[in-house]
């Protein structure tokens, strides 16, 4: 049996506003095993980044509303912040989406590293710094970047430094939040591969890779979770999700992706009509039903999670119809 690094059980986290709660993460179940890179996909506002914040750096108005999250078997939602602080970097770590300004402009890179590891009782001695230099080599960076300031580094380099820092204490679980979206195509590939490398070298135990770019996700994720409006739509092995989706939303999303080989003169791709629902006033029912071509009356009830394959689950009443006529879509 694979070792569970992260397990979410009916996790709920809402943004509390005067107007009401935004149910950004609303009942997510998820298991990430050691060695897995779990891709979390969905469009903006679906709750994928909120999920990351809930796990590691929740802003003040984002409140945990229910459910549990286990990291290495320990529940972390109910932990005191002091206790959880000790887990950070060593057990759970983050590559934020704001990698380009994740450094203080007035401190050298090595100062960041030294200060950070000291906070975890690790002495940044020569031996340790040698290890850091080795890690930098893995991401194809010269050790001299340590003596540089962030402004001296290009976007891609910063991204790679961040990857090094976030994984410097070999965390069990790494959250990679939109780490490729600000990068050029060539750097995207490099950075995405790096994440896989870190996993392969067992520097990180496992990771979730959050992006809105399904194509990149497909390249590196072992499993993919698709979120829609705070709910889980579908989760399963990457190949299955991409080639045999069992949720109407996943299906529509994938079929809308342009790809080399298809020109508009041959095939017209289609988007999804409409916009995601407002998460403050959302009631029960499938949240995708307003835009769904498979919609039935049953969809007014919140769909159950159905297993449709090995570790492949979907939350749709009509999943059996999905895929059968997917070719018509194109």
């Amino acid at each position: 049996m694979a070792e569970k690094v992260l397990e979410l059980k009916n996790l709920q986290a809402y943004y509390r506003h005067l107007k009401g709660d935004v149910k950004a993460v609303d009942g997510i179940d998820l298991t990430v095993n050691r060695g897995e890179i779990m891709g979390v996909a969905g469009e903006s506002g679906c709750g994928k980044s909120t999920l990351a914040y809930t796990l590691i750096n929740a802003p003040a108005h984002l409140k945990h509303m229910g459910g549990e999250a286990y990291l290495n078997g320990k529940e972390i939602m109910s932990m005191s912040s002091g206790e959880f602080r000790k887990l950070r970097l060593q057990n759970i770590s983050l590559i934020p989406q704001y990698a380009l300004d994740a450094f203080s402009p007035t401190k050298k890179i090595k100062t960041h590293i030294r200060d950070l590891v000291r906070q975890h009782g690790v002495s940044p001695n020569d031996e340790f710094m040698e290890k850091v230099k080795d890690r930098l080599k893995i991401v194809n960076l010269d050790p001299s970047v340590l003596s540089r300031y962030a402004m001296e580094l290009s976007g891609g380099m910063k991204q790679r430094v961040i990857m090094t820092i976030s994984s410097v204490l070999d965390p069990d679980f790494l959250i990679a939040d939109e780490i490729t979206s600000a990068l050029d195509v060539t750097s995207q590939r490099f950075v995405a591969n790096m994440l896989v490398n870190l996993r392969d070298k067992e520097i990180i135990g496992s990771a979730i890779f959050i992006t809105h770019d399904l194509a990149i996700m497909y390249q590196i994720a072992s499993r993919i979770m698709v979120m829609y409006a705070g709910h889980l739509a579908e989760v399963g092995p990457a190949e299955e999700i991409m080639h045999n989706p069992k949720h109407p939303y996943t299906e529509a999303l994938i079929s809308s992706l342009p790809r080399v080989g298809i020109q508009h003169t041959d095939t017209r791709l289609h988007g999804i009509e409409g916009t995601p629902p407002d998460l403050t006033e959302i009631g029960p029912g499938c949240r995708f039903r307003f835009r769904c071509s498979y919609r039935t009356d049953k969809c007014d009830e919140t769909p159950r999670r159905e297993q449709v394959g090995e570790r492949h689950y979907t939350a749709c009443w009509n999943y059996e119809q999905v895929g059968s006529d997917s070719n018509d879509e194109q």
Partner: protein
Amino acid sequence: MMNSKPQEGLLSVRNLSKIFYSGIINREKTVGAKNVSFDLEPGKIISLIGESGSGKTTVGKLILKLLQPTEGEIYFRGQDITNLTSKKEKKRYYSKVQGVFQDPFSSFNSLFRVDRIFNMIFRIFMPEVGKSEQEDRILEAIREVNLTPDLLEKYPHQLSGGQLQRLLIARALLLDVDVLIADELISMLDASTRMGVLNLLLDICQEKGMAILFITHDLNLGYYLSDTTLIMYEGRLVERGGTRKIYENPVHPYTKMLFESVPGVEERWDRDEDFVPEEIDKIVREFYDNHEGQGFSEVEEAHHVLFSEQKID
């Protein structure tokens, strides 16, 4: 295609260059664009592909007269518009050539309702059109981009990025433009909505003969949309040709590398390959060294590749 005289095409760009100078005392030179040439025909879409800093946005700005080229010419319907200066001429040009940009929010003033940009069009370009006709035409354009008229009364922050970009397209429609410069038009949009916007544009191209210069870094998208593809690297046009030709038979090492990096949804990257983007500079230099003197030459019909580095003067 480059054999056609610039006098005949819709929009032709010849040897367009832009050198930026910075610093008051010591003038630092930066190549914005160097020797860029292409023709844009009515109803056609050219995708201009490059990474950040490649000069693709500079080319767009040069065509939109937001920048003045250092060298080269721009022809619109056979007329040299490189040195348009009078306000009247510029206005006429802008009534036919418009730009839509990456960040739709920046095109709107957050203090005004969104309908203001439509009213401004009439005030600037078509002051002769009466009030009621104005409204009719605005509503028509709004409907064409699949939006509802109630959006006009909202403020930018109340609308989504997709809605704002549709509004910008509606504006171009109102003007009945011949050329649209679309710079990273949909990169702000979600996968599920971007296709709607793109298809809309495609329809307009086909129906009205509008030509689009589609500036993007997304190769998948470029393939889907364009007839002709331009690849830019370090301010230079390194490869130009029919989209299929280029994608199937890339010659320039940079183009090759770019295509290798494209994430596909059919197959995964070869992960054993040692992929280091930093080395591309070296590879490109070697490529140039090996092909010294060949310049920008045709490798097959309507497919040109840059074989040697063009130095800045």
